[in-house]
């Protein structure tokens, strides 16, 4: 987040959101007071650590098979058991974190990189180009998102890049719509009128006045989007059109375990809980961020 003050014109602004240093610090304090958000952030940090340090943390190679130790229940040797190929589940879950987080980050990243400019064009400049772009976004929003991802991923035939493309694609319109709506309202603020009045260029107004006011909602949308993308990626992998085997993936491991669930419960429970814990953590954080950045939606005090 940009932490510097935005110049004197912010005083004119009536919206009590993350405008200046003081309100921003207030937002941080509100976030720190939210225990669930802190818990979510801690779990997310742990997952990021797992993703980065996977080779150090994982006791085994995620794809190395041990046919003498198939279907081992959780033991001292294999803390979370092994699968039908004797692969260590704990190691697969740790490496799977890497796959999930990279895909989620890249998808949201490219969705934001495309969606935010579209929203700014439509919201700040408007005009026929903005209009056509938004109608196109509306059309994308007319598909159930998961179906669109399945159609794209299914047509292009799986693989990490395809999954990122498909999952990012379904988040582009969300960012565009959100940014457009907010840009429209920020554009009418007195400090923007003032900036236009003293002759600031469009680029400067966007960079110094519009975008800093959108950071909050973009962060919230990005965080909540992150958890949705993790679910969608797991869904695609579960359906067999995500990241191809033998790469570890929470969704596909869950689907692989499905066949043996009556005898080897850990093959289902471990990936299932991993997905739930990660998604819950990110949602806790996202809810906390939303409450902290926008006092109006805060739970009643």
């Amino acid at each position, binding site marked *: 987040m940009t932490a510097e003050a935005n110049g004197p014109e912010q005083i004119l602004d009536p919206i009590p959101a993350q405008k200046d240093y003081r309100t921003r610090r207030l937002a941080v304090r509100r976030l720190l007071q939210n225990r669930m958000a802190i818990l979510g952030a801690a779990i997310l940090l742990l997952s990021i650590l797992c993703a980065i340090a996977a080779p150090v943390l994982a006791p085994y190679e995620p794809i190395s098979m041990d046919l003498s130790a198939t279907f081992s229940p959780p033991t001292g040797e294999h803390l979370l058991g092994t699968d039908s190929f004797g692969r260590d589940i704990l190691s697969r879950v740790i490496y799977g974190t890497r796959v999930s987080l990279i895909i989620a980050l890249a998808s949201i990243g490219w969705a934001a990189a495309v969606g935010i400019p579209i929203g700014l064009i439509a919201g700040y400049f408007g005009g026929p180009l903005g209009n056509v772009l938004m109608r196109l976004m509306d059309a994308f929003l*007319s598909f*159930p998102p998961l*179906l669109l991802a399945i159609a794209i991923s*299914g047509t292009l035939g799986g693989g990490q890049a395809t999954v990122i493309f498909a999952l990012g694609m379904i988040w582009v319109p969300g960012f565009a719509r959100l940014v457009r709506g907010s840009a429209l309202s920020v554009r009418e603020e007195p400090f923007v009128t003032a900036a236009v009045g003293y002759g600031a260029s469009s680029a400067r107004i966007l960079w110094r006045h519009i975008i800093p006011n959108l950071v909050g909602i973009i962060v919230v949308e990005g965080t909540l989007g992150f958890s949705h993308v993790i679910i969608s990626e797991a869904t695609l992998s579960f359906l067999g059109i995500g990241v191809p085997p033998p790469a570890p993936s929470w969704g596909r491991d869950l689907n692989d375990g499905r066949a043996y669930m009556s005898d080897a419960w850990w093959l289902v429970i471990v990936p299932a809980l991993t997905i739930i814990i990660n998604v819950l953590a990110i949602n806790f954080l996202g809810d906390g961020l939303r409450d902290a950045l926008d006092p109006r939606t805060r739970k009643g005090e």
Partner: protein
Amino acid sequence: MLTYTARRLLQLPLLLLFISFIVFSLMHLAPGDPVPLMLGDIRTAEAEAALRHELGLDRPLPMQYVSWVWNALHGDLGYSIANKQSVLREIASRLPNTFTLAFMGMTWAVAIGIPVGIYAAVRQNSWVDYLSMTFALAGVSIPNFVLAMFLILLLAVRLDVLPISGGPSVLEDPLGAMRFMLMPALAIGGYAAGEIARMLRSSMVEVLNQDYIVTARGKGLPERRVHWQHALKNALIPTLTVLGIDFAYMLGGSVVLEQIFSLPGVGHYMMQAVFWRDYPVIQGVTLVVALVFIVINFATDIAYSYIDPRIRYE
């Protein structure tokens, strides 16, 4: 009201055109065509060319797009590559199953979500509130297929009270089909149940702080009446939108659950087509579901503007 509906209706054809364009472009993002797959082992260059010509795949893309849209407008979505059956007829026979699944999911989501949302708002910041909202967040955070796994483990593997997969079509045996859909419906409605509860709670909390509620309490109305008659009416409005969106989303989610439970719905058809690279089917299902999605959203918007007249003037 009428002008608003008319204006929204007029936007539909343009939206549909954009949608058909997206669907068509998607199918042609991938290099190559289904011809080699269709011919299998007996493929020669001549046979491929002949089949391409027969399917119209040798024509320029814009021409193919126009004829696809033209045929779709006339109720012809082409034929499946895998089994040569009419795509539209197959979708029509499967759509009722998908709708039933989504409808069952929505029914229990509403039956749980609305009372929980109201109760949590009324008992704001009590332990009941925190507990319900934790459950609601869990509902939103547990992916439907993960929930399905837990349900199968519990209800089918451990307790053996519900069937795991298959089942008749609702068109043949409605009750039998619904028994098979019980578990997937529970799984598909989890998200909506959580979201409805969360949404209703927050709008209810907001409404309960408004002046007219203070007035209602001030004139001595019993709390029950204040909650159910005065507050709920206004608080339900945002929830109604969520309801429409969630129902539409369930059509996407049904792909996964129909696949897990082998239900004879549109989603299952779609997944088979994905594995066979059956382009006309993927194209047709995506188009039809998008159409249904639009109609539901449209109906929600109209209902919304009917309940809250302020919407129309935006």
